[in-house]
């Protein structure tokens, strides 16, 4: 099994051009990027109009926790990329292990986010308490909805792991998209001044 699959890996590494996964998923990626960019633009504009209030709200966040969230999700993207390569080479056991690792890291991210929400709510910051926190809770919650859909996508990946490499790549594309949305959200909520 492995020996028959190896030439495929070599060919791909030498640069055979193929769109990763189903093209439809890329249409979704581009569409969602536009939607999120629109959210980000509205947030950035509001921020410039009420700079002091946004800075005050932002100072309630823990930057190191945002960094930890990001590192966890980046690591999940790494394990997902490994999963795709293992599956392509017909190494389904390590591919499955990496898929479960990805799901585990996604779960850790979710727990960290809930811990952060609970902490902020205990400090009196809610969806309606200030404009900054309205954006904060909206952007982090809409991202978490995408993450929850990601768990379903991972289930499909594990289910179809040995049946269709195209579906594996499609699911991976979705997961990485959730990752890079967070990379942008982290920069905009925690770092910009």
């Amino acid at each position, binding site marked *: 099994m492995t020996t028959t699959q190896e030439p495929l890996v070599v060919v791909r590494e030498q640069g055979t051009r193929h769109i990763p996964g189903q093209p439809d998923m890329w249409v979704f990626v581009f569409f969602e990027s536009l939607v999120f960019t629109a959210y980000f633009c509205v947030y950035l504009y509001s*921020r410039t109009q009420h700079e002091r209030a946004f800075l005050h709200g932002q100072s309630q966040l823990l930057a190191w926790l945002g960094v930890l969230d990001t590192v966890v999700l980046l690591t999940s993207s790494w394990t997902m990329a490994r999963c795709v390569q293992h599956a392509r080479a017909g190494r389904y056991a390590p591919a499955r292990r990496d898929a479960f690792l990805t799901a585990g890291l996604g779960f850790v991210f979710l727990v960290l986010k809930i811990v952060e929400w609970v902490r902020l709510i205990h400090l009196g910051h809610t969806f309606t308490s200030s404009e900054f926190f309205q954006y904060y809770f909206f952007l982090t919650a809409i991202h978490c909805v995408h993450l929850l859909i990601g768990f379903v996508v991972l289930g499909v990946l594990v289910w179809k792991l040995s049946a269709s490499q195209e579906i594996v790549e499609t699911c991976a594309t979705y997961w990485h998209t959730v990752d890079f949305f967070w990379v942008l959200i982290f920069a905009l909520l925690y770092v910009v001044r």
Partner: protein
Amino acid sequence: MESRVNMRLFVVWLILVGITVAYLAIDRAANDHGLATASTAVTVAAICLALVKVRIIMREFMEVRTAPPVLRRLTDYWIVLMAAALLGVYLAGKAVA
């Protein structure tokens, strides 16, 4: 072949984590005696670094690097579009504030 490919993914992950941790330095630089202050330089740097990370994720993890030229170009155009929108709106907002 397998170890080389996995090593590349590991190096990519290290670079992404390195940029993320560098944000903490930016975060400290933007504070004046513990108080956060507005800074166009920090905002522009944060947005640009985030988009660099997005491009790395697309190229390496999403395998755009080995995809057909149309997808490579489209993703690059998309990142430029996002950069123009985010920086444009931010700078326009600063101008009218």
